[in-house]
């Protein structure tokens, strides 16, 4: 797999990303996947809803990657992040194929949803789309 097309004309401002997952292995690899992209930076990571909400308020990141089954409640975290930092786009990242859980996140204002197990490329594409760097599909 080749790297993502490297040079758009004038590289715009970096996308600030917050990553929220209670699984450390996933948290670490997601951080690395994002960090290895030239146009994104990880500004915070959180392992529970409390932390995620607090850090969202402090950093108001462009993007938040949020585990649906998250200690403290994925939908709750989504609502609170949206309240503290309305500019943050939230990508729900779930190990479920459970459409009910998706619905709940949608109600909480989440528009982008990805099942864990998607490829890194799909993950990054979803992030860029959410960050307005790609046309909505």
């Amino acid at each position, binding site marked *: *797999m080749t790297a993502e097309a490297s040079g758009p004309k004038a590289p715009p401002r970096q996308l600030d990303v917050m990553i929220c997952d209670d*699984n450390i292995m*996933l948290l670490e*690899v997601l951080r690395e996947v994002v960090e290895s992209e030239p146009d994104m930076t990880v500004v915070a990571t959180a392992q529970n809803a409390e932390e995620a909400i607090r850090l969202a308020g402090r950093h108001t990141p462009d993007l938040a990657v949020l585990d649906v089954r998250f200690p403290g409640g994925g939908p709750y975290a989504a609502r609170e992040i949206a309240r503290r930092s309305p500019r943050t786009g939230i990508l729900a990242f779930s190990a479920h194929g459970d459409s009910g859980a998706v619905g709940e996140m949608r109600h909480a204002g989440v528009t982008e949803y990805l099942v864990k197990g998607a490829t890194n490329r799909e993950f990054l594409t979803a992030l860029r789309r959410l960050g307005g760097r790609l046309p909505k599909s």
Partner: protein
Amino acid sequence: MTAPQDSSGTGRPARRQASETAFTLLVQGVLDYGIFMLDPGGHISSWNAGAERIKGYRADEIIGRHFSTFYPPEDVAAQKPQRELETAVAEGRLEDEGWRIRKDGSRFWANVVITALFDEDGVLRGFGKVTRDMTERRAAEQALTEHRRLFEHLVRGQEQERQRIAWDVHDDTIQSMVAVGMRLQLLAGRMPEPYAAELAQLDHTVRDAVTRLRNLTFRLHPPGIDRHGLVEALTSHLSDVVESWGLTHSFEHRIDREPSPERAVTIFRIVQEALLNVHKHANASRVALSLESVDNGLLTRVKDDGNGRPLDPTAYHGHFGVMEMRERAESAGGWWSLRSEPGAGTTVEFWVPDLPSTSEDDVPTPGPAGDGASPDAAAGDGTSPPAATGDGASPSPAEEEGP
């Protein structure tokens, strides 16, 4: 014995006499009921064949004796016979179920009705007593109740265990494997050939394993059934699993309200097995699922257009699907059926009751297992008097608020 009352002697005495005689013969000959009379003091004054069969006494052995002879000593000590007569006098009749004693000292479970008999002037003339031996029926009912209770227990345990395994696999194993896969992709992007290709290959293998594991967890525990309901869980099952078998499917549902979680799992599991059978055996191209509220319960139908091979009853050995489906439906208090028409397909149809029940919510409430199906008797451990355990009313206030 008393004959049907007649207001005066103006009838046709001969006819009346004949019908009285026939009536007396009927009462004397009936075997299934002990029918006899007591004088106002409780002494036996008549006896029939049924009473002899049930209690073991001949008429000449028992007439004149006090009816408390039939009661166990503890009841006699508690003056139950006397109280029963008093109640019958006060209220006209009394019905009771309990242990009684036969001539040989053995016990039987009796249903007893005592009726007070008054003459035209309101004077107590005695009592009519009808006794039925319910021992066998009671034993059969208890066996059935016990059987159901055990089965429900088993099903509940099995579901809980499956759910636990599903969560463990889901939360731990799958997530770790996903992380491994993502890392392999990262590495593949950084490595020169031939390593990059090999890493990509490894990533594929991991990804396939993740998919298989995810399907396993879905089978172990239908996602969303607890929170999002039966229809949602069935819909996902059709689109995730049945679709992958290449079966065209339809799903019609008209339900008045969401069944209790336990009923939902019962229905889901039966449908799951019925669909699996369609996949394994029917060679069908389409399957229609329908779910409908009927008679305070849910009627479910799984209809395929496959070979409709009639079931060979001798071939049940080693096949558990059919047995288990029926068992699940019946233990929930419902019924289950399978119809096959060669060439036209097979229909599995079942109904399970789902009365609005307050005791079903898995919260430990006082009393037995808390299944709406088998109320009384079940608490036979003598911990409390058989007072109503207050179902039907509102749930206990403490457990109202959810998370």
